[in-house]
């Protein structure tokens, strides 16, 4: 006969055993359910990853095919199956930008930027979008952040490209001083490479820095001495700044390279004209650096041309009392020693030489205002008149140094 205590004890043990078995069963069921769920989940995630890949590939192809609107749909679908995948997000943002959804693309890139504010690519895209939105300051800030940001792959080259793009933007904004600074840094940081040097030189020329532009053209020519594009660009720059000797030399080389090379590379007609002009300008330029005898010969040749131009222009105003006061004043000056002195007189009087040169220039300037644009040698003399301080650029393509010798 069991006592109450023993009965209670047995009942308690039974209860503990029952609870233990129930908890064990529950644990087993939980493990089983977990295993099944895990198996299904792996299959599920693999399936979703496959769909994400499929749609992102379609989106990428559409983007490459120039169909950003289709790419947007495809990439959004890809992101549905793989939310937060950075590569897809970047593609989608690019597609939005290319499709003209500037604000949306800007917002999208800003979302990505918040996660990675130091990413060079994202900052570059934001800079471009800020340009489109006419937000100059933000564009500059994002460009700079891009330059100092992180890049995958060749960071040096990418940063240099971004800096050149920033310089282009600054040139467009007419902030030439800032553009020059960026270009010089870009050129200094990047290793010499023909295309990059040419690009830098072109941009420096646009930023009104011909001397440094010349340096980079020379660097480019040092790498590819006979490159027609480099010869032409350098020759034109030399012509532009008034260094007609270098202009003639480079354009002549361009002509020679073209003649020796493929017919497809034949010199363009305007290059030939420019060459002829440069050669003639060399003959007319009364540079003080020339030997005295040669300078006087140039002055005399110019004086004849200018005199003829004045006569032709004055002839348009017949009878004489209708002659404009500017031409009347010029005629009076021509009657003086600077208009009539011979070679011997000029040879010994450098002040008179300068007066004669000034008379030639005044004549071309005034007649241009009264009788319109001149042609031929008059046009060349007018060019000399309006470029009073032509530069003399260094001749060697290998030196790389810059000289700023002005008359």
């Amino acid at each position, binding site marked *: 006969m069991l006592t109450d205590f023993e009965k209670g004890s047995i009942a308690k043990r039974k209860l503990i055993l029952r*609870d233990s078995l129930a908890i064990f069963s529950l644990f087993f069921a939980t493990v089983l359910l977990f295993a099944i769920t895990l198996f299904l989940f792996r299959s*599920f995630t693999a*399936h979703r990853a496959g*769909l994400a890949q499929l749609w992102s590939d379609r989106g990428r192809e559409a983007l490459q095919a120039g169909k950003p609107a289709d790419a947007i749909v495809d990439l959004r679908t890809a992101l*549905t199956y793989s939310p937060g995948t950075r590569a897809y997000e970047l593609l989608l943002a690019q597609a939005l930008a290319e499709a003209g959804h500037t604000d949306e693309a800007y917002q*999208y890139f800003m979302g990505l930027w918040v996660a990675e504010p130091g990413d060079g690519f994202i900052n570059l895209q934001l800079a471009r979008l800020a340009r489109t939105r006419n937000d100059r300051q933000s564009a500059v800030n994002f460009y700079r952040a891009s330059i100092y940001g992180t890049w995958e792959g060749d960071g040096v080259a990418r940063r240099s490209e971004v800096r050149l793009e920033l310089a282009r933007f600054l040139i467009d904004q007419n902030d030439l001083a800032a553009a020059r600074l960026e270009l010089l840094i870009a050129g200094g940081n990047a290793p010499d490479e023909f295309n990059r040097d040419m690009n830098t030189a072109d941009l420096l020329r646009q930023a009104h820095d011909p001397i440094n532009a010349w340096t980079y053209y020379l660097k480019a020519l040092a790498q590819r001495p006979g490159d027609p594009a480099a010869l032409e660009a350098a020759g034109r720059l030399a012509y532009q700044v008034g260094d007609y000797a270098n202009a003639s030399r480079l354009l002549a080389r361009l002509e020679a390279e073209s003649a020796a090379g493929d017919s497809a590379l034949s010199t363009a007609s305007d290059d030939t004209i420019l060459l002829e002009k440069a050669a003639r300008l060399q003959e007319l330029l009364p540079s003080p650096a020339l030997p005295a005898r040669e300078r006087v010969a140039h002055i005399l040749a110019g004086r004849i041309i200018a005199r003829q131009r004045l006569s032709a222009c004055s002839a348009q105003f017949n009878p004489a009392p209708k002659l404009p006061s500017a031409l009347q004043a010029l005629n009076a000056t021509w009657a003086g020693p600077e208009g009539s002195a011979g070679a011997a007189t000029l040879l010994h009087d450098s002040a008179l030489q300068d007066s004669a040169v000034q008379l030639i220039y005044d004549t071309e300037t005034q007649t241009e205002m009264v009788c319109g644009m001149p042609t031929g040698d008059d046009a060349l003399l007018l060019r000399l008149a309006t470029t009073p301080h032509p530069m003399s650029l260094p001749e060697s393509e290998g030196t790389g140094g810059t000289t700023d010798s002005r008359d």
Partner: protein
Amino acid sequence: MNHRQFAAHTPAADGAAQAAALREERLLLLLSIFIGVIAGLLVVAFHMAFDWLSVLMRGSSPQPHQLRLIVVPTISGLVIAVLVRYVFPEARGSGVNQTKAALYIHNGYISARTVIGKFLLSALALGAGFSSGPEDPSLQIGAGVASQISRRFGLSRERLRVFAPIGAAAGLAAAFNAPISAILFVIEEVIGNWSAAVLGSIVLSAISGVVVARWFWGAEPMFRIPTVNLVDPRELLAYAVLGVTGGVASLAFTKSVGWLRPLLRRQSATSQLLQPAAAGFLVGCIGYFGLPQVMGAGYEAIDAAMHSQFTVQVLLLLAVFKIIATTLSFSSGTPGGMFAPTLFVGAMLGAAIGSVEHHFFPHLTGSIASYALVGMGVLFAAFLRAPLTSVFMVLEVSQNYSIILPVILANTIAYLLSRILQPVPVFEIFTRQDGLDLPSMEEQREESDLHLEDALHPVTVPVLQGGVSLLAAADALAQFGDLSAAPVVLVHCSDGLWYAATRAEMDSLLATAPPDAAGEESVALTPAADPSLTLEQRLGPERTPVLFPDLPLASALPHFQRWLLLPITNRAVRGALEGTVSQDDVLKRYQQR
């Protein structure tokens, strides 16, 4: 009457009862973890199921003008209607009211068939594109799991009842990936009060559910949240406008569901069988003709709205058509939840207001995502009438505390406006339409409990000091004159506590008192009649319970079995008497309510 006579149980019986209570308490905590884990696993599986079905049925990239956007929900509607009618009749609805009904009507019981039906039919409805959400079904699935597990352990009926909210919290937490919001919602909407008995278990199960969900889905919040911030204090005005808009939108939403649901339920049985198909057809048409975002749960659209991918016009269109699509889906009896559509509408309205604000005051406006997030909270507060949950939900989803001010402001405005415009909350409308009489959680929250101070009366009975002798006590009593109107004498003991002695007790004590100095007839001195003993020593160690005026009125009730009158004392000064309450006082106070 001696209080010892009231002891109803033997020590052995008390011990057994205590052991049983201890066992249940321990099991409750242990089972809460299991329930959380299993509910979490089922919610993960549920999520996979409707996502998979969505790809299978609607294609991997649903776009407008795809015919299957109409065909799939129509056919699925037919299948769902047949299954709901003949196989899973308890699976219809959102799941919140069904869980409440289980708690208050069925002792927390939810059948396995209901759980399976809810899982399958909600997944089918969501996958087919019906406008609903997975959170409320997850809540019911969790509650069902808890119900099924708890019944295997032979627990008391009282315990069994509390398992439903424990499972509900786990299911909702796993679906939302937001444990605090889930716990608060269950407390606000299912239980209705902060019960310490189940709070620990609810927390345990919710955390277990979230841990499981995060193990599979990762710790990221439900939506990719861009920068959320409050740029300028003046921006709060825009959030106030959002609160007003949310309040009005919730009214429109509540009215439309409240009107269409009973209307459709009044139709013939055959018509009801066709209603889900008709709803599916109409929802499909919305998707086919340009707004496929309103189909399904709509999380992708919420994400897109937060990332400024819609124009104001599209945002407003999406909000309006989501209300229409959800009204159709829900009123037709298709299983599915209301949470996701509420968040959807709120996000669209928020993003729309943010976009307008951004257009006119670009320097005063934070990100559009901030507005979308606050909008979600606003609709949650106004439509589902869960203000506390709505605030924490936004904080948990955004994982950003800096947005707290706009959230509180906008949610409060929306909540108050919604209460004024629509006094009856939407879940209560549904329970009334279903003929149930479940407690209103909103009313329950606002009920002001009565306290002892509400029944407190000034002390009118004699008060004696416990440290005096019996003779001195008798003298003191004599000064009170006729004591027939005072059935109790309060004795203030030297330990600061009180003893409410009945007249009978006092008479009995005084009868044993020694004769006074007048030389009356002497009586034999017994230990109890020892003249050196004070009044409180004669009364023994027992004291009346220590009660304070701010305690619930009901807390006095158990003590009237032993004491006729209860002294109410001051919390600041030990033993200082504030007044007294009798059983009659308490009952009268309740009757006055």
